């Protein structure tokens, strides 16, 4: 559903992404691993339209994403959870979750439905709904950011370093949450970056290694990935 061909991104005169080829298949989970500075975050940001692509192609369901601004990409159902949560601190959790529906001008009914779906998927959230975004612990914030990304990303969700900054116990519970989302929403496509990839082994279909702005090796993470894919 998403194709990157020979994508090049330059920041401050320096090519952060040199030649990225990436292809996401519908309903699969792709893990992008690599050290800090290898270009994982840049790849996600380039997909979201937060960074200009210097050369190469970026297509989504055959449509040219490069011609669309970031907010229009969100409208296509691409959700994004940046590494450091970045909730709106003066909004409640529920307002944070509803912000995309406001921005995308969803009807009240649609917004309610999506919110209910998020609350069902992430049962930690209803209890937090009235808390301010700025008053959440790290783990809670991560879950809210995931919920918000799912609110936008009806088809594709990009998660940047979801475990970064989480204590091991919290990271485990987050991974379980993610596995539950995965099980409930089989149609959803996920692209996850991670520098310590042990936690996601069970749910990853495709694992890619990014090094110096290039995706080097393609390796299926699970031998049964091909069978379980629709």
């Amino acid at each position, binding site marked *: 559903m998403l194709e990157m061909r020979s994508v090049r991104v330059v920041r401050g005169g320096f090519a952060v992404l040199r030649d990225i080829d990436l292809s996401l298949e519908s309903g699969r989970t792709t893990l992008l691993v690599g050290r800090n500075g290898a270009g994982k975050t840049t790849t996600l940001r380039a997909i979201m339209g937060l960074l200009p692509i210097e050369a190469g192609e970026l297509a989504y369901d055959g449509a040219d994403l490069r011609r669309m601004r970031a907010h229009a990409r969100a409208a296509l159902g691409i959700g994004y959870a940046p590494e450091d949560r970045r909730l709106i601190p003066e909004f409640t959790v529920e307002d944070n979750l509803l912000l995309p529906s406001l*921005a995308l001008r969803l009807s009240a009914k649609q917004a309610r439905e999506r919110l209910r779906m998020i609350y069902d998927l992430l049962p930690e959230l209803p209890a937090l709904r009235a808390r301010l975004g700025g008053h959440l612990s790290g783990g809670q914030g991560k879950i809210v950011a995931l919920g918000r990304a799912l609110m936008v990303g009806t088809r594709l969700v990009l998660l940047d370093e979801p475990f970064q900054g989480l204590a091991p116990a919290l990271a485990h519970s987050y991974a379980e949450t993610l596995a539950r989302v995965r099980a409930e929403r089989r149609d959803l496509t996920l692209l996850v970056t991670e520098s310590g990839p042990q936690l996601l082994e069970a749910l990853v279909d495709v694992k890619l290694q990014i090094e110096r702005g290039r995706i080097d090796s393609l390796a299926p993470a699970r031998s049964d990935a091909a069978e379980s894919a629709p």
Partner: protein
Amino acid sequence: MSIVLPLLVDGLAEAALIFFVAVGLTLVFSVLRILNVAHGSFYSIGAYVAVLLGTWVIGRGYAPALTFLSMLLAAALVAVVLGPAIERSFVRWTYGRPEAVQILVTFALFLIFEDLQKLAFGVQPYSQDAPMQLLGVSSIAGVVYLNYSIALIVLAVAVAAGLRLLLARTRFGKLVTAVVADREVAQTLGINTERVFVSAFTLGVFLAALGGALASATSGVAPGLGAEAIVLGFAVAAIGGLGQIEGALLAAVIVGISRVVAIYFMPELQPVAPYLVMLTVLLVRPFGLFGSPAMRRL
């Protein structure tokens, strides 16, 4: 006492006019993160257009009450014509560039607007007095007040409250809050930030032009008005804390009162008062009354 009260009303009425400039400035700064020197020009252009419209209304023999409408219309006209055009061309170009460039681009616009106004309106002062005469005066305990001054004060408070409501309750306000908090994330949630920028900038222009339009009924409109308005606006915005609506309101009141006090004790130095207040406030609170520093993570 009998002299302080009317002075206070005068001071606050003046504060109200500065508030319109400062709040627009602060709004534009918090959303676009640009200190717009040309903001003062919108104030003076609003004033000129309001006088022209007002004199036209009176000249055609329409009801003088219509001049209130014409002031509002003038502000709206200036905002709609100049706001989007300026934001989309020059201002947008400066996003992400060094502050010196941002300030200079808007300063260049200010210089250009100053001379365009001189070319269009000459150097002689323009004025209209219909609105003020219409409202008349009232006297309380033997002291006479201009009703127009009181109307200005009420209007400023209403605008502050209205802006607060707009930001807290409406869809537009929530989008603005999100953009102010995190521009980038706002985009990924589907918010068209460019549209928010245009709208916020235009709203800022409207507020400045409204201030100018309302001021045109209290004093003459002549070259230099915009230059004076913008520095006062800066001072008030800085005292309140950049980006703070309530801060701007409180700062405007403090500045208004300080000018009254100055008039009472040392009328010559009345124009210094706002700056002395600003220096004092920033000495104690470096980011203004309502502002707060951002700490860098290491």
